């Protein structure tokens, strides 16, 4: 791989200099000069140059025949036979992408003892559903699921494969992408299609959301991405839609797993699944004691919301780790996030700042959470929360 400036074309206009994210370009004698020590070959300058004066030569670009790959696939995650809501979000977004590429949208369903799950996916917009129904796939296990996806993708060659950025999605798709020798972009929050190249422009937060990056997989197919929960709009239900169900069978050996699932223990502290929640009420050190989390739980109950916590509250033992939001906990993206007695340090913000509406209840008007909140209630949470609980109970 190498990058060079074509001296006969370069006009010294500095467009590349502005585009370079790592300040690797200087203008010397009206020509751009690239510092190869700094350059990461990101190609931002190539795109910015209006004179085609910068070229990157990829030596080993393995450009297989990309045109063999057609169609948009979404992985329809199921647990105990129940299709997870994130699959409907993927179908909503997948529909849009498939329409702009003028191709079919398909869902992929792995599991056991299915009844009408494939029809549900069709009602949500899938043109076809690929199903592998086997007792070995009843619960998620890395190896057989990887084998199944690998087999189906190789057989049908979709150009895009999307999955939820869930526990299952992240474990599984990472493996499949490596097996397929293709690119994978994690935890995306936005997609566009570049119609000329049929490339998927995948936008995602990096550095905890301080920066956004757009990523493409130019020369490999399929283009794979996991998608953040709750960012994409769920596909609407249309029970009149028709679609194909394609049943596949996986050879016994591919269903083997070296690891085995012995048991599942449900988290009884979580009445609502934090990742899937539309509304989250979170508590922090401002609650002062474990028993005061009852206030948070009551407010959450009045709203049908899930309960979150800051790390300070978790480390103090007031809440289980599974509720922790932030850099070393979960990343959430609900419609409404209500932070009570949380100061909003950066490590907390990176886990929730993509929420649609942020509400802060804090007595300190200078707390960072107040600065980013859509609605900031400055006052004593011990007074305000019980009032809110009562009002919401009455109003909803």
């Amino acid at each position: 791989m190498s990058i060079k400036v074509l001296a006969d074309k370069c006009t010294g206009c500095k467009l590349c200099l502005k585009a370079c994210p790592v300040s690797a370009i200087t203008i010397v004698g009206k020509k751009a000069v690239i510092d190869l020590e700094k350059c990461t070959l990101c190609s931002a300058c190539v795109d910015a140059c209006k004179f085609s004066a910068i070229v990157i030569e990829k030596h080993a670009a393995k450009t297989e025949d990309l045109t063999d790959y057609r169609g948009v696939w979404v992985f329809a995650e199921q647990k105990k036979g129940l299709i997870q809501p994130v699959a409907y979000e993927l179908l909503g977004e997948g529909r849009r992408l498939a329409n702009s590429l003028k191709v079919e949208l398909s869902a992929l369903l792995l599991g056991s003892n299915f009844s009408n799950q494939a029809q549900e996916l069709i009602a949500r917009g899938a043109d076809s559903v690929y199903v592998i129904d086997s007792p070995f796939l009843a619960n998620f296990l890395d190896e057989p699921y990887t084998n199944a996806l690998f087999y189906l993708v190789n057989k049908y060659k979709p150009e895009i494969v999307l999955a939820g950025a869930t526990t299952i999605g992240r474990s599984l798709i990472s493996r499949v992408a490596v097996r397929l020798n293709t690119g994978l972009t994690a935890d995306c929050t936005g997609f566009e299609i570049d119609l000329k190249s049929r490339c998927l422009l995948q936008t995602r937060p990096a550095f905890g959301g301080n920066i956004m990056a757009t990523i493409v997989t130019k020369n490999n197919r399929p283009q794979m991405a996991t998608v953040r929960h709750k960012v994409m709009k769920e596909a609407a239900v249309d029970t009149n839609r028709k679609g194909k169900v394609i049943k596949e069978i996986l050879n016994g050996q591919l269903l083997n797993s070296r690891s085995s699932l012995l048991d599942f223990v449900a988290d009884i502290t979580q009445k609502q699944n934090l990742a899937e929640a539309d509304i989250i009420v979170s508590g922090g050190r401002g609650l002062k004691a474990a028993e005061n989390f009852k206030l948070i739980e009551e407010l959450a109950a009045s709203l049908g919301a899930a309960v979150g916590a800051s790390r300070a509250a978790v480390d103090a033992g007031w809440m289980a780790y599974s509720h922790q939001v932030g850099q070393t906990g979960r990343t959430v993206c609900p419609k409404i996030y209500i932070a009570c007695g949380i100061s909003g340090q950066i490590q907390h913000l990176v886990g929730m700042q993509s929420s649609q509406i942020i509400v802060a209840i804090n007595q300190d008007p200078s707390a960072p959470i107040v600065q980013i909140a859509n609605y900031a209630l400055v006052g004593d949470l011990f007074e305000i929360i019980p009032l809110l609980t009562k009002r919401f109970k009455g109003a909803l």
Partner: protein
Amino acid sequence: MDIIVCIKQVPETGDVKINPQTNTLIREGVKSIINPFDMYAIEEGLRLKEKFGGKVTVVTMGPPQAENALRETLSLGTDEAVLVTDKAFAGSDTWATSYILSCVIKKLSPFDLIICGKQASDGDTAQVGPGISVHLDIPQVTFVRKIEKIEGGFCQVERLTEDGFEIIKTPLPVLLTVVKEINEPRLPSLRNMMRAKSAPIKKLTVNELELDKNKIGLDGSPTQVVKIFTPPPRQKGIIFEGDASDIADKLVAALKDAILQAKSHK
């Protein structure tokens, strides 16, 4: 028990910003730390070693200054540190990174366990761990919150999911990625801090590894970053102050529609 821990040096969260005039990453004054989740990976390695004997080898791929991160792990009590660094590795995405690390780990074989953090705080991908396990063709368990037992060539672990945890049994060698709940990292000891200053760090460059040069660095990476930008700032919000009852009324009025909407699409 021979344990390999993979760590990444990352910029301290919050320090990373884009200069709005030039649209470039501001690098000056950005402090580097060990990726927070990797601290739990190191601690778990140390605890297993204390229980079963053996050694903990820490591996990182990164620029030469990642040596500092390795010295920090030595001050916590790890046995060996390997720095994988070469210009040829620059620009590697998660595919290429996990490929390179798997080649390094093959060279360090045999091992019983590889431990990674759940994800790195700069990219948040959670892809490198699973990638390594595929390249090495060993089983993996992601998001481990507890190692229940290791015996007879198997380990039994708890894997955190969105709605609880799974108990998984898997043969060794295996790759685990760990979450914060698994332990509380220790502080460096004086003795180890002294040792860390001068302990040798093994350096590996591209020529010392058996790997396919077409699969590394930017060339070997299927994904490419084509644009970086600052997210649009959040709209300036509304502040309610004063009488609590008043404030509560105002919020309910302001949120009611949004709440009904959030609930209705269910």
